[in-house]
């Protein structure tokens, strides 16, 4: 077999050295009744050529953002990824390394994560970022656990403008410890500060909001911050990292924890994963941060180097008292984010954010002017917006497929009737958007 270097002759010699005649003697203590009597019912092995062909066939049954003009978002976005990103992450030095347990032979991984942490702090305005979580949803869920642990309370407020998929994961994570999630209804697509004020009390450990929120709208983060902090709670803000090229970093409005989905930062769509969860916080929360954290230090000769630090928060040391159970994270996806942010740099992140804003507003205005369509909410938004339609959204999407367009997300699946959620990244051209608008106007 191509992936097993030892020949049968090698095996014979090795068994001899071990002092047994047959392999079976080595597994003598697996009781007979537990032994598998027949071969696994798995198809016979294929050659590499055959498997490539097979997988090409299977992948060919999918349609992609290359085949269709995509206006899909909802937490995963079709941003442009510079070629250098995958060239770096495809280096075996990065992708075939394990967790950097031996720092002396892992400085590549360790330094890049330190750089990733620094960039996330720079974008979010926070003091400390961890090395990554699984995805945006689990980062938000861990923020909920962290908030309750900090405050010693078991209630959290989450408004309905948070991505419903994230809300679902937050609930799953909180179920075990019986943490109550109080959902806050929204008005015109955003949290109404008065409603939050009414609901909140010192019983709550904190509030988790999303900004820009699931509907793309900007929340009144400044009023929300005052309300949350004056009740003694912690404020978590879920962000779209691309938006922070232009939007105020949450650190500046005194958020305690920032989390978000880092897929936009140089990671492929990949049918939903692997992505990378961002989690950053104020320094005062550093000992409650889940996951790995890389710190700078020196070696015995005084040379600068990097190590995993504050490990005693983690499961392998603290076991049942660990702040989180996370072990493996999304290091390679964090590396993609690091390389992406390096290539874009200070100007690029602004330019991408600006193009998203300009183009999404261009499209929103055009759609809003069509008969039978109007913007669902009249609040400022970033790159995504909800449209209310006279026609069935399902029928509209059907008609758009025929024109080669993925026209957005039918919000019916989240209990919102007659609405589409439309995302526009810098990749969409004016021509594509005009095709979209013309196609919409020809439906009805």
């Amino acid at each position, binding site marked *: 077999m191509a992936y097993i270097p030892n020949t049968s002759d090698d095996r014979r010699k090795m068994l001899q050295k071990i002092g047994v005649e047959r392999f079976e003697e080595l597994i003598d203590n697996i009781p007979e009744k537990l032994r598998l009597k027949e071969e696994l019912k798995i198809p016979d092995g294929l050659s590499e050529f055959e498997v490539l062909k097979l997988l090409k066939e299977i992948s060919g049954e999918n349609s992609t953002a290359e085949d269709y003009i995509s206006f899909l978002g909802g937490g995963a976005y079709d941003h442009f990824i510079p070629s250098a990103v995958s060239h770096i992450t495809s280096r075996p030095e990065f992708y075939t390394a394990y967790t950097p347990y031996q720092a002396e032979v892992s400085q590549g991984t360790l330094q890049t994560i330190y750089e990733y942490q620094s960039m996330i702090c720079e974008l979010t305005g926070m003091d400390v970022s961890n090395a990554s979580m699984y995805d945006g949803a689990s980062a938000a869920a861990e923020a909920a656990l962290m908030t309750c642990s900090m405050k010693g309370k078991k209630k959290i407020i989450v408004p309905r403008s948070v991505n419903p998929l994230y809300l679902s994961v937050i609930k799953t994570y909180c179920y075990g410890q019986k943490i109550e999630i109080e959902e806050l209804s929204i008005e015109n697509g955003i949290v109404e500060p008065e409603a939050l004020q009414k609901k909140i009390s010192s019983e709550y450990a904190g509030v988790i909001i999303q900004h820009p929120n699931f509907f793309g709208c900007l929340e009144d983060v400044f009023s929300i911050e005052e309300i949350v902090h004056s009740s003694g709670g912690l404020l978590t803000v879920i962000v779209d990292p691309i938006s922070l090229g232009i939007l105020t970093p949450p650190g500046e409005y005194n958020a305690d924890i920032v989390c978000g989905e880092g897929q936009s930062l140089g990671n492929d769509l990949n049918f939903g994963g692997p992505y990378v969860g961002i989690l950053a916080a104020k320094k005062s929360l550093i*000992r409650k941060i889940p996951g790995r954290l890389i710190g700078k230090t020196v070696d015995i000769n005084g040379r600068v180097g990097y190590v995993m630090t504050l*490990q*005693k928060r983690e499961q392998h*040391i*603290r076991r049942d008292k660990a702040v989180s159970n996370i072990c493996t994270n999304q290091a390679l996806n964090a590396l993609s984010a690091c390389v992406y942010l390096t290539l874009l740099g200070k100007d690029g992140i602004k330019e991408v954010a600006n193009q998203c804003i300009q183009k999404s507003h261009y499209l929103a205005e055009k759609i809003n002017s069509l008969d039978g369509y109007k913007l669902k909410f009249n609040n400022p938004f970033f790159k995504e917006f909800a449209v209310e339609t006279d026609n069935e959204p399902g029928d509209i999407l059907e008609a758009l497929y025929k024109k080669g367009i993925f026209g957005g997300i039918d919000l019916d699946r989240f209990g919102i009737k007659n609405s589409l959620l439309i995302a526009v990244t810098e990749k969409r051209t004016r021509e594509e958007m005009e095709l979209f608008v013309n196609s919409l106007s020809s439906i009805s």
Partner: protein
Amino acid sequence: MEIRENLHYTKEHEWILVDGDIATVGITDYAQQELGDIVFVELPEVGSEFTSMESFGVIEAVKTVADLFAPVSGKIVDVNNVLIDRPDLINSDAYGEGWIIKIEMSNNEELNQLLDAAGYKSLIGD
């Protein structure tokens, strides 16, 4: 390794220096050696109250973490804030500058439950 005669000890490797109703608490020389380089001490708030054997804080070394237990019941009247920036003082001077808290004891009789120097010495098998 140093074990001082004038102190009380616990099985959790803490020392207690008694002065009237006030007990000063730290960790022993043996404990600091076992833990290795200490990097952080979580201190309780002055005024908070603990019962004997209740955890009042946490001490962190590079790769371990240990709970700190109140050897006697009482109220915290002072904490060694210098440790916040200089946790290494516990390594360099466990019985002196590395003290951790002072407790106003609510029940001096609890002291009878503690080990003396000889008892602690035999505990750690020295």
